[in-house]
């Protein structure tokens, strides 16, 4: 059986599940101090004075620094933004606040102590006199007159004003439409909530420079940003290492002030400094996700074909622009508004707004869940307006299988797709016709089945992952390329070490990347190791996020393998005294075509590459190749999900009876890992749909900062998923793979909300905002009812 495409078990897991994994908090250096960051309890306030004198007297305190100490120093810096839009307001983001705090959790001072408890005790003793100011919290209300101003440089709190698509053409489409439907929605703010909190351990040596071990999804990007803006050390004097990383979900892409503060402290004091966020500290400082306020409309002609879509969104940026924040509600959101559908005119307008909240940036799905929610909710409203079954309305509007590559009206060109088979498969697994019949029967005789309301929700989603190519994203404002690197080092005895610029933190690359190499080179998978996450060991790379690692990182490995095979072929041809063109490489052997038995084994060629006793004239010894793979396009996974729910009309409680996910991520390297990613993605999306919300009150206090209040999904709350796939390979990368890490998160919120709204349709309910708390549903069923 082929290694590539088989469900071999993750090689990472034995160590991780037996507690042998080494995370940041498992690491200790001699002389290490602990940092505690003193954070603002106010959403918006002027800092009038900071008194550290009492705190400094605490036994065990090593040093206390404030924003002014950092600003006045040689290595003091700011947190940069990595994606620039036209006219983007980029107010400075000092690594510790100097005169003003702008969200609860904004850092004001840092305490270093000999142990962690002392650091936290002393942090409580730092006396800060604040002058509290009004806070701007809601992304839309923040732009209205009289709202508190987060930054003087950004009037009306507007960070950017962005549009995409043909406004006039879209408006004409609406003017001529037979039917239109409209939707006002709020896409709930969520916390990223990696199980391992963010943290770092910095150590500075005058000769070697700074070594920063940190929770990172992209160590080279972190090193680059630190060097460019935050701590003013040359890039080669910074080594960033990501040890085991316990989940990221986007939150460990961004550069936060904290790593820069800790690095600065290590440089200043000459002692190693460690900082680990507490859970509540992470809740108020990790970049959050979503938080959109949107008005959207769909225009439909008399035949049930969509004639236009338009959307106007206010997207919270939070108090400061996080690393890739401006890209998320724009190029990762507006561009997805065509969904799986052939829509002749689309226009989207997005206002990015500063609010006195934690920054908002990429969180699993990043913009695409928000777009998919708009499109898939509008599809259900459109179907209802047309009196069509939601499946039929979708089918009628799908981009047809022969239309690929398909150019949307919002910039993207879909590489490949075949949407009807995925829909058909999902409906078949669900037993869709029977479900609709059951629903009809229940509605006719509501006393049966405990009176529970049955709802069926579809979500036919499109996803765009492996964002690329670099030249295009550069023209759109990215301050980085979006290729990936891979070095394949073949050792003299034929075993192999792969150095990838991807940086796994739960995705299983040590397994899947080894599968690619084992398959392509015909070696045993145990002869392949994968190294990642250390800027000193690995060549520059972009890291792991946006479901890019298989499509971009995996393809880079293939490119390096192709170079290895080419060089191996040259060596083999020389040893076999044959022409290079007559050599074929198969199953670990270089053979002369058509001459049985005339071959050089993989091991012999590798050994000769390093012995160099008999190489072709001019050929360098060694067998090691590096590639930087820059994709031609995004990849576009897709699929259809079906949620089947029961709603208790007396209480508003929702039970997910079944959840069917049919996903198409192209060729699958490891179907078990694909399924695992789908499961995790679904939990993430279902959590947003039913339970999760980061709630700021009007004063800008996060009222859901702990797991006592913030409802991260638990296993017993989730159904047993029914997963299946179709396979439509990506036509432009050498593996034919797409991406799967975010699909479940993108597809599931509208599937769940559509199902609940379907269940509630007899009550005239057309839309409910997430999370669908029982009370929200109960109030929709019992409007105005007093208890």
């Amino acid at each position: 059986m082929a290694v590539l495409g088989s469900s071999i078990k993750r090689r990472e897991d034995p160590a991780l599940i037996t507690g042998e994994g080494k995370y940041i908090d498992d690491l200790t250096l001699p002389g290490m101090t602990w940092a505690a960051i003193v954070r603002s309890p106010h959403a918006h306030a002027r800092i009038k004075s900071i008194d550290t004198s009492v705190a400094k007297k605490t036994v065990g305190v090593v040093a206390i620094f404030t924003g002014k100490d950092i600003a006045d120093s040689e290595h003091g810096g700011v947190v940069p933004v990595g994606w620039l839009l036209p006219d983007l307001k980029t107010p400075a983001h000092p690594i510790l606040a100097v005169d003003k705090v702008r969200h609860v959790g904004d850092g004001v001072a840092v305490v270093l102590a000999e142990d962690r408890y002392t650091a936290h005790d002393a942090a409580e003793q730092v006396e800060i006199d604040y002058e509290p100011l009004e806070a701007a919290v809601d992304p839309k209300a923040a732009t209205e007159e009289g709202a508190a101003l987060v930054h003087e440089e950004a009037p009306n709190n507007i960070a950017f004003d962005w549009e995409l698509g043909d406004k006039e053409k879209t408006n004409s489409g609406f003017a001529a439409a037979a039917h239109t439907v409209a939707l006002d929605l709020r896409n709930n703010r969520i916390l990223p909530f990696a199980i391992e909190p963010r943290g770092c351990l910095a150590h500075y040596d005058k000769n070697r420079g700074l070594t920063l071990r940190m929770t990172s999804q992209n160590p080279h990007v972190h090193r680059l940003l630190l060097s460019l803006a935050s701590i003013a050390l040359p890039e080669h004097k910074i080594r960033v290492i990501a040890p085991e990383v316990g989940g990221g979900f986007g939150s460990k892409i961004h550069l936060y002030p904290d790593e820069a503060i800790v690095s600065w402290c290590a440089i200043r004091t000459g002692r190693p400094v460690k900082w680990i966020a507490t859970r509540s500290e992470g809740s108020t400082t990790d970049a959050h996700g979503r938080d959109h306020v949107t008005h959207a409309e769909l225009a439909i002609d008399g035949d049930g074909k969509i004639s236009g879509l338009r959307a106007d969104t206010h997207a919270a940026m939070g108090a400061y622009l996080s690393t890739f924040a401006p890209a998320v509600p724009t190029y990762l959101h507006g561009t997805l508004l065509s969904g799986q559908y052939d829509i002749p005119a689309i226009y989207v307008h997005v206002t990015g707004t500063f609010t006195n909240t934690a920054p908002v940036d990429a969180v699993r799905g990043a913009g695409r869940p928000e777009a998919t929610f708009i499109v898939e909710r509008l599809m259900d409203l459109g179907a209802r307006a047309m009196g069509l079954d939601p499946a039929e309305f979708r089918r009628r509007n799908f981009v047809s299988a022969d239309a690929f590559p398909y150019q949307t009206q919002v910039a993207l060109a879909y590489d490949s797709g075949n949407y009807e088979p995925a829909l058909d498969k999902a409906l078949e697994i669900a037993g869709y016709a029977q479900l609709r019949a059951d629903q009809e029967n229940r509605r006719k005789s509501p006393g049966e089945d405990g009176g529970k309301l049955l709802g069926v929700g579809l979500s036919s989603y499109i996803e765009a992952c492996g964002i690329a190519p670099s030249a295009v994203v550069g023209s759109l404002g990215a301050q980085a390329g979006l290729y990936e690197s891979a070095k394949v080092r073949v050792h003299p005895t034929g075993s192999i070490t792969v150095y990838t610029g991807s940086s796994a933190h739960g995705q299983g690359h040590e397994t899947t990347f080894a599968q690619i190499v084992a398959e392509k080179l015909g070696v045993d998978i145990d002869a392949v190791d994968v190294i990642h996450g250390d800027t000193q060991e690995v060549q520059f790379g972009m890291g792991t996020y946006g479901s890019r690692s298989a499509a971009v990182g995996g393809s880079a490995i293939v490119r390096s393998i192709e170079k290895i095979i080419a060089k191996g072929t040259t060596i083999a041809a020389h040893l076999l005294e044959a022409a290079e063109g007559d050599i074929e490489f198969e199953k670990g052997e270089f053979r002369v075509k058509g001459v049985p038995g005339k071959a050089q084994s993989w091991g012999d060629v590798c050994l000769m590459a390093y012995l160099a006793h008999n190489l072709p004239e001019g050929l360098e010894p060694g067998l090691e190749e590096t590639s930087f793979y820059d994709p031609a396009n995004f990849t576009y996974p897709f699929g259809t999900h079906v949620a089947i729910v029961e709603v208790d009309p007396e209480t508003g409680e929702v039970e997910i009876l079944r959840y069917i996910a049919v996903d198409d991520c192209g060729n699958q390297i490891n179907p078990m890992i694909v399924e695992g990613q789908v499961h995790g993605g679904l939990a993430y999306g279902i959590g947003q749909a039913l339970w999760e919300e980061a709630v700021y009150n009007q004063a800008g206090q996060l009222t859901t900062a702990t797991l006592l209040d913030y409802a991260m999904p638990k296993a017993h709350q989730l159904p047993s998923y029914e997963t299946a796939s179709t396979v439509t390979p990506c036509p432009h990368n050498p593996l034919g793979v797409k991406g799967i890490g975010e699909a479940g998160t993108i597809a599931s919120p509208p599937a769940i909300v559509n199902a609940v709204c379907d269940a509630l349709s007899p009550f005239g309910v057309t839309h409910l905002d997430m999370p669908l708390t029982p009370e929200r549903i109960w109030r929709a069923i019992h409007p105005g009812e007093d208890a």
Partner: protein
Amino acid sequence: MFPAKCDYYRATSAAEAIDLLGRHDNARLLAGGHSLIPMMKLRLCEPAALIDIGRLEELRGVSENDIGDNALRIGALSTHTEIATSETLRTRCSLLAEAARQIGDPQVRNKGTIGGNIAHADPASDLPAVLVALGATIHILGPNGERSIAAPSFFTDLLTTALEPNEIVTTIEVPVAPPGSGSAYLKVEHPASGYAVCGAAATMTIEGSSCTAASLAFNGVAATPVHAEAVTAALAGTAADDSAFRAAVDAHLEIAEPLGDLHASGEYRVALAKVYGRRALEKARDRALS
């Protein structure tokens, strides 16, 4: 995450624990630690001294035989797991075992204790209303000796009990379920914490086809357990059918000051109590008849 500094004492007897409480200002008893430690980590609670009673065997265990008049004694340090899995309780006071099984998760149940739970008096906790519905008695030891309080009088306000500063809960006495009776604890969980947004505890005794006795109490809906005596009074002598339950609950369930929060308003909790009160009564009746 990082509690403030405090002193730690391990008591070797209940009497010593009471003595230590008397000798230290701002001292707190530590049993299973599953309410106190989280509050200390958030620095919502900063005791000067912790008095650990967690290893006092004298306060542990479920009596296997009846004591006095058809009652069972449960040591205050019995864990939720011990209660949930006690064969005696499962067969003779199943309401308590059923509720204990629904507390938190296995780790919480393995450490958390019944005494600590009720002394903390979290209104969203699962045991208070169950003890009220059962007509349990709380036995207390203090500097002046022993005393006993009926469960409804024990819970006086939000996170407040009738315990005097230097007293500790020693045992909880619960009546054995009478023949022909059934009970049920139904709960709407907060999706994050697992605490009760509304927990309904009901008992019912059926003779022939009519209800001769019933009790109903709620967690999570008010500052203290809501004892719906008017509802069950209205049920006595009725046919114990669903419509009787609905009529009794609709007419007689009153929750004066319902609790409300971000997740569930007071108004909604009252609506939940009506539905779950009725469902708990129905289930208790079905079990009485089965």
